[in-house]
């Protein structure tokens, strides 16, 4: 059953509200993969905010306090939950921007939801019932990433788990699908398929170009393909674009091989905005669901 498309509103308290869904302007979720320091987070938020203000793109600051899926035991995990959430809380107050962080332990959901405007379920955990249950209980928008091992149609099962615990504020994101070992591929049909749940869909461009654990104990990536995939995904009807970005990727403490260099962000977002607006014009003229499968 194709459910009516929902509009999801991200934000509580004094921050800007970001509405995602239907034919609304494309939203952006972005920031450094991991929170490194307060100064760095504030610097990145300021830089991204200038770009998004210039382009008139609604956005949510994304950065995580604990990266629990790093490949090596000694890789940077993050600031930890207490310091990380304090930085995100201060950042909300300073910039008036909604924030999102993932969480990977059931005990972290409640404090994450108390600070963040949106809580993110990591792709590897997207079918874990215990994680989905506590995500739903935060009463925040749940940003649910499609596992690299999941088909887009099976995300319906995870959505129904969230709904069964009272959550109906969900955004579904594709971050690539495993193609054998050490490689990901993007199936653009995943967006119309996941949209059948009724929830907005998002494309995670920077994790999609990841080469999982291709460097032995860290993941590689092919950043050069980001613009191609972004244009393709936006033209396939995404409602939001997710990209991790850093002012100095070589020194990034997490996902240094995949984060987008900040110097390219304005260019990519500008392209995405133009493709999104052009798509809406095309839909006005031709419609979208105009080929029947049988």
């Amino acid at each position: 059953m194709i459910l009516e498309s929902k509009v999801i509103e991200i934000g509580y308290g004094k921050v800007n509200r970001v509405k995602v869904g239907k034919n609304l302007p494309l939203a952006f979720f972005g920031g450094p993969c991991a929170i490194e320091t307060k100064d760095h987070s504030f610097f990145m938020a300021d830089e991204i905010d200038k770009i998004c203000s210039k382009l008139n793109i609604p956005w949510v600051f994304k950065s995580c306090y604990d990266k629990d899926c790093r490949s090596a035991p000694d890789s940077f995990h993050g600031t930890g939950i207490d310091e990380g959430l304090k930085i995100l809380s201060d950042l909300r107050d300073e910039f008036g921007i909604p924030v999102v962080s993932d969480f990977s332990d059931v005990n972290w959901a409640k404090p994450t939801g108390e600070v963040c405007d949106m809580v993110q379920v990591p792709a590897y955990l997207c079918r874990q019932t215990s994680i989905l249950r506590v995500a739903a209980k935060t009463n925040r928008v749940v940003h649910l990433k499609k596992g690299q091992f999941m088909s887009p149609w099976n995300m319906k099962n995870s959505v129904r788990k969230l709904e069964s615990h009272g959550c109906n504020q969900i955004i579904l994101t594709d971050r690539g699908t495993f193609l054998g070992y050490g490689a990901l591929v993007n199936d653009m049909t995943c967006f119309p398929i996941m949209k059948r749940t009724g929830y907005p869909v998002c494309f995670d461009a920077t994790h999609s170009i990841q080469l999982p654990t291709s460097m032995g104990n860290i993941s590689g990536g092919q950043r050069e393909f980001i613009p191609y995939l972004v244009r393709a995904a936006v033209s396939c009807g995404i409602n939001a674009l997710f990209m991790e970005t850093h002012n100095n990727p070589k020194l990034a403490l997490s996902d240094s091989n995949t984060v987008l260099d900040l110097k390219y962000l304005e260019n990519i977002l500008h392209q995405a905005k133009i493709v999104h607006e052009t798509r809406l014009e095309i839909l006005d003229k031709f419609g979208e669901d105009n080929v029947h499968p049988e």
Partner: protein
Amino acid sequence: MSTQNKNISVDEIMLKLGEFPVVKETTILREAIEQMDIHNFGVVFVINNSEELLGIITAGDITRKLLNFQKPTPALFIDDSIDHANKDFNYIESGSEISLALEICKKMKIWDLPVIKNKKLVGYLNFHTLADRFLDIN
């Protein structure tokens, strides 16, 4: 069949709820097919939470889907049942005479007929039910 037999109510010979396959509209298609298998019928009825009949899926519908619908089977299996149900179905009202049911089956060339009361599914008539009742086939 005698005239007396034709005048009896469909309610007397229909299968009752629990004796034939029924699923909710959001039950996935695989589970709907499973219900057909469990009850050994080539039809499953799709209802909403108020037990109103929304559609019917037959084994023939599934066969045609498999031939014409090129989706991967796992993607087809997880679709909601209502997506694959015929929503323009024939039915008979509870309390009607069996002769009317037979007329509908003959005219529409169908073997399965849901019995409805105030839009709600209350029973199921099919060829085998009628044969068991009116023909001494044992």
